[in-house]
Every structure is written in C-alpha cells, then in structure tokens.
C-alpha cells in the first residue's frame, strides 16, 4: 500500500514529463501542428467549390463535411505520433523505462490531442460560419469535435503503434483506423445535424462521451501492447 | 417464384461460387506451399 502511494507522484511526474517533452517538440516543429490544420481548412474549402455555393446546400452538408475533414486531418497527424521517436531511438527508451508504459503512451496521446485536436476545435467555428451554421449549432459542433478528437487520438494511437516501423505505413494506418473511426464520425456528424434541425441531440453527446471515457481507459493498454509488439 | 426467380437464383449461385472459390483457393495454396517446401528440401538434399 505504502509502495503504491510512494509510486504515485512518480507516475504522474512521468506522464507530465512525456506531455511536456512532446509539446516542446511540436513547438520546435510547428509544421507538424499546422499542416493538418491547413489540410482541414482546405478540405472544407473543396466542398463549396464542388457542390456550389447555395446556402441551403451548404447548411445541409456543413456538419458532415466538417466532421469528415476533421477525421481526415487527425488521421494525417497520427502518422507522426511514434515515427520520429522510433527513428531516433527514444521510443526504445520509453519501452525500457521503469514507468508503466500505458501511462507514458497516454501522455504521448494527450500531447497529440493538444497539438491536433484542440487546434482543430478552435479553427472549426470559422469554417462552420462559412457554411452558414447558426451560433448555437456551432457550440454543439465544437463540443462533439472536442469529444470526437479525443476518441480519434486514442483510437489512432493504437493504429500508429501497430504500424510504426513498417514501410507504407500511412496508407495502412488509414486502412486500419478508418473503419474503427466510423462510429465516432457517425455519432459526431449526426449529432450536429440534429442540432441544426432543432431536434433532440443529447443522445449523441452522451454516446460520444461514453466512447471517449471507454477509449481513455482501454486504449493506452492496447497501444502499449502494440508498441511492444512492433519493437520486438 | 413470381418475378423474383432471377434474384433468388443469383443469390444461390453466388453462395455456391463463394464456397467453391474458397475450397479451390485453399487447395491451390496448399499445393503451392507443399511444392515450395518439396523443392527447397530436394535442393538441400542434392547439395549434401
């Protein structure tokens, strides 16, 4: 018991150290944060160009387009989650560290979410406004995107861990993660659509929240196991 | 069968096709694996 209590601050310190390190690295390489964000904005620009600028059309497709674009942008950023650590050998240091690996992996995933999910959520109102989305609906959309990007980062970390060190990792990562991410997309985008139609939308929010909690508690173990397998 | 005969029989034919293909591909793969091993072992024997 006392052993456990003695370890707790160290575990938390390890978690925070990993998050700080990854955030610092992102700060030094802003491209990793900005590129998916530009990608997100560009995909959102493609749709009005493709389907026409009619206001009713845009309002109709807006939630879906924003959500699909957010999903693809997150996927794009996931590729680099473990790759650079794998290449410079620091991933092996994580694996042999006395800290529990799931905690360290959770730290990396949190840092990833802070660098990819949060900026997406912050930029999304601008793009949503161009789709004529009303203010109240924008709030709902930001909430679903917040929960949804948490789910996607956690889910994606499993895929990134499975494909780290493989050639052609990017295409494979998409193939692994997209089917897993479909429920998140479905819940998120439809919740926003329901809100836009002035209908009851709380079910989707609760479901996304439940998904996020479940992913938060389970996925670090799966990611840790996958990392150990990939680095055998 | 009313007007639906074509749909129903197509489905049964597809089921048959999937079963036959699964069986056939399993046989082909087994033969290939077996022959590859055979060739390798024969080559090893000759070298010895």
């Amino acid at each position: 018991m006392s052993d456990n209590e003695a370890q707790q601050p160290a575990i938390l310190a390890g978690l925070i150290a990993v998050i700080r390190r990854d955030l610092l690295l992102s700060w030094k390489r802003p491209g990793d944060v900005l590129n998916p964000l530009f990608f997100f904005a560009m995909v959102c620009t493609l749709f009005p160009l493709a389907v026409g600028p009619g206001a009713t059309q845009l309002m109709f497709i807006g939630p879906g387009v924003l959500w699909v674009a957010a999903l693809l942008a997150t996927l794009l950023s996931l590729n680099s989650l473990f790759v650079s650590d794998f290449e410079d050998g620091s991933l092996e240091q994580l694996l042999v560290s006395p800290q529990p690996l799931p905690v360290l992996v959770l730290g990396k995933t949190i840092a990833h979410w802070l660098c990819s999910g949060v900026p997406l959520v912050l930029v999304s109102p601008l793009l949503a406004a161009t789709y004529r989305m009303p203010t109240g609906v924008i709030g709902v959309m930001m909430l679903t995107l917040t929960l949804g990007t948490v789910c996607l980062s956690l889910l994606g970390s499993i895929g990134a861990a499975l494909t780290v060190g493989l050639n052609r990792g990017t295409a494979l990562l998409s193939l692994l993660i997209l089917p897993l991410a479909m429920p998140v997309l479905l819940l998120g985008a439809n919740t926003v659509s329901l809100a836009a139609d002035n209908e009851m939308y709380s079910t989707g929010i609760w479901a996304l929240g439940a998904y996020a909690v479940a992913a938060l508690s389970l996925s670090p173990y799966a990611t840790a196991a996958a990392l150990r397998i990939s680095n055998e | 069968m009313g007007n639906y005969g074509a749909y129903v029989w197509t489905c049964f034919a597809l089921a048959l096709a999937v079963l036959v293909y699964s069986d056939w591909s399993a046989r082909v793969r087994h033969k290939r694996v077996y022959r590859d091993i055979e060739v390798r072992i024969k080559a090893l024997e000759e070298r010895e």
Partner: protein
Amino acid sequence: MWTFFHRLASPPHIYRLAAIFAPWLLFPGLVLVAYGTYGGVFVAPTDYQQGDAFRIIYVHVPAAYLSMMAYMIMAVGGGIGLIWRIKLAHTVGAAAAPLGAAFTLLALLTGSIWGRPMWGTWWEWGDPRLTSELILLFLYFGYMALRAAIDDTLKADKACAVLALVGVVNVVIVHYSVEWWSSLHQGQTLLRKGGPAMDPAMLYPLLAMILGFTLIFGALLLRRVRTEVLYRERRTRWVREMIMAGQGGK
C-alpha cells in the same frame, strides 16, 4: 492435462487431425445445405409481404452469421494466442480472416440483390445491417493488410491479434451506432424483428442452412489451418521427414 493439450495442439498432430476431420464436417454440411436449399426454395410457403424474394434469406442469413463468427474466431484466437502464447490459436485466426471476408462479401452481395426488388435500389444506406456488414468488410481488409505488411510471422500474429481484439469491441459499437443512425433517418430493414413466429416450413430449412454453412465453414477453416501449419513449420524436421517420405497429401 496440460501435456495432453500440448500434444493435441502440436503442429504434426493438428496437421494430421485437420485432414481427418475436414470431410466429417464437409459432407454433413453439404447434406444439410442440400436439404435447406430444397426446403427453402421449393417447399417453404411464399412470404405474405415479400413474396418469393424472401427466399434469399436462406443464403443471406448464414453468410451474415458466419461473417461475424469468423471475426469472433479471429479475436478469440488472437486473445488466446496473446495470453497463453499458443501458436495454434494465432494460426486459426490467420486462417479465418480470408474466409470471413469471403462470407462478408457474400452477405453484402445477397443483401444488395435482396434490396433490389424490395426497395427498388441495389444499395440502401438506411439499412443498418448492410451498413454494419460493409464496415465489417473494411475491418477484414485492415486485418489482412496488416498481416501482409509484416514479414515476421510471429510479430504479425501478435499485431493482428491486438487489431482483432480492438475491432471486436468496435463491431459492437458499430452495430448500435448504425442502428441509432438509421432510426434517425427512418431506416428500413430486410429482416423483421420480433414479428410473428416463422412457419416451421420456413424455419427448419433456415436452421439447416445455418448449421450446414457453419459445418462447411469449419471444413474450409480446417483445410486452411492445415496449409498455414505446413507453411509455418516449413523448416522443421517433421515436415521434412513427411515430405521426404512422400506423405502428407498435396
């Protein structure tokens, strides 16, 4: 007890047993499918709503059922392989993947053909089952692509086991979320739920088809497991001796 299991699961043993058991599953399966086809197509009365198109159920439901069972086999096999480090469990999972994908494809095709006379379209996004099956097919593709991308068999086994376990949790979520989604859009479904009990003349052929398909699936799985065992054990002495003796069947 454990030594018994170990001997049972030893590769040469499995290789021999699979060859012996496969016909015992295959032929009863074929008989059941023959009976089910006859009873389903010629004997069962016409459905009062769907007319004769409902007879597609006799291939659609077994295929859909097997598509999910194969995924369960992959996940359970992967779990057993990871926890108890039994190689055979991974082998079974690897062998089940292509079969599962084939049956998923069959379920999708027959569902789509069924939809044509019922809805007037080859594909109806509003049907939750078809949409779930489509996602399941993508999950199979991901699993097989991951296996193909990793050269080291042992590593591929473990990585695929993790993926299958994550996927099986996801299949449940997909099922419920797609159901919720289609209820928003007044989804239509081919199979009525909780309706009046089926006429026995309709039901028995269906049960025979499900059981028959499962037995045939079992036979095909055993054959694939056999090939997989042979491939994985290609550098061992027993394979060498067997092939030198010209035994083991091609």
